């Protein structure tokens, strides 16, 4: 027997959801938009980018919609002035943390960070930009990782682990020193576990991992969520 539906309100609209659903899923299914960056349908939620924060009545701090399950009688607000302000600040911090220069980036025009900045009205960063250079690994025959553009959303790690099933990629370090590593922090060309499938490049929301000599529009498939969800079912 199906579990009883949960009733909650999102932005004043009464909606029903399965008890196992997250706030994000309930909102999306009811046509309410919540911006996301690290979340990708079909991968386990990570709650790292914090862009999907929402207010829940009775909870003192904003919560991430992608990881918080719905509950009976929950009152969710997705677009209060405070939430919008926080989201803009989060984007500013992401933009300032590493070297994001759209005009010379391979992802220019198909970048989720770039379009979110526009849609949320982040037209400049009040935080001074950090120009500390990070390495770039182009040793692999077809894949490149440029850490300067990475926003640590961990989509690549999750797709590599959960869909391709090899877990080549992971994180080293903490805070601003955290970085994606290949195997045990090796050169990509030296990796025995990498199957060169390119799923990491396909899910990268920015231009941090890309395929050599390929237009980003080709790399980033529009039907990606369907593909991942399909793979997961197999």
């Amino acid at each position, binding site marked *: 027997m199906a579990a009883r539906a949960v009733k909650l309100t999102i932005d004043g609209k009464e909606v029903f959801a399965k008890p196992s659903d997250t706030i994000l899923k309930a909102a999306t299914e009811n046509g309410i938009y919540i911006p996301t960056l690290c979340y990708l349908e079909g991968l386990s939620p990570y709650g790292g980018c914090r862009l999907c924060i929402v207010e829940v009545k009775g909870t003192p701090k904003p919560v991430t919609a992608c990881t918080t399950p719905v509950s009976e009688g929950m009152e969710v607000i997705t677009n209060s002035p405070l939430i919008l302000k926080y989201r803009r600040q989060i984007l500013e911090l992401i933009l300032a943390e590493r070297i994001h220069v759209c005009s010379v980036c391979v992802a220019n025009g198909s970048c989720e960070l*770039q379009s979110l900045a526009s849609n949320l009205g982040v037209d*400049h960063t009040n935080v001074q*930009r950090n*120009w500390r250079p990070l390495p770039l690994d182009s040793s692999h025959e077809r894949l490149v990782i440029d850490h300067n553009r990475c926003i640590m959303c961990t989509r690549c790690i999750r797709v590599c682990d959960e869909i391709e099933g090899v877990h080549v990629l992971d994180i080293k370090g903490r805070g601003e020193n955290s970085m994606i590593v290949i195997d045990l922090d090796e050169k990509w060309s030296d990796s025995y576990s990498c199957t060169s499938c390119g799923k990491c490049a396909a899910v990268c929301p920015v231009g941090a991992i890309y395929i050599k000599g390929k237009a980003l529009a080709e790399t980033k498939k529009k039907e990606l969520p369907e593909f991942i969800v399909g793979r997961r079912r197999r």
Partner: protein
Amino acid sequence: MQVLKVRVATVWLSGCSGCHMSFLDQDEKIIELADKIEVVYSPIVDIKDFPEDVDVTLVEGAVANEEQLHQLKIIRERTKLLIAFGDCAVTGNVVALRNMFQDSVKEVLERAYVENVDYNRQYPTQVPKLLKNAHPLHEIVKVDFYLPGCPPSAELINYVLRELLDGRTPSLEGRFKFG
């Protein structure tokens, strides 16, 4: 009786002039603007000193040398509404990529005037000194409006100017694009 026109200036700091090209790409819409604005200072206007009492100034480019630093402060004093015009002015963009080098001035000059040169290798001397880092405008002065893009499209420039001329604050949410 002559109608008082809005006094507009455009300035070209460390940028590629692409934003100015995009400004000119407004094509025939510039003629409509010309009825309402007077361009009092610009790389395409033959005036040497930045005039007093400018209503709107579009500043293209990052602040990368001492002369620009000095110039921008004067521009701010004499301008009512200062617009950071294009990605270099808003973020530093390509101009600020040199900021990632430890000793950026020396490395950049070495690369441009010594390493890549076959004949007459020497640092330039008769030009303003480079600052240690290239800066977006708002790191130096107060900026009233940000118009990102590399370059901002002609339509966007036209939209912003028309909104301002009509006394409204342009809303760029979802309209602009970095890069």
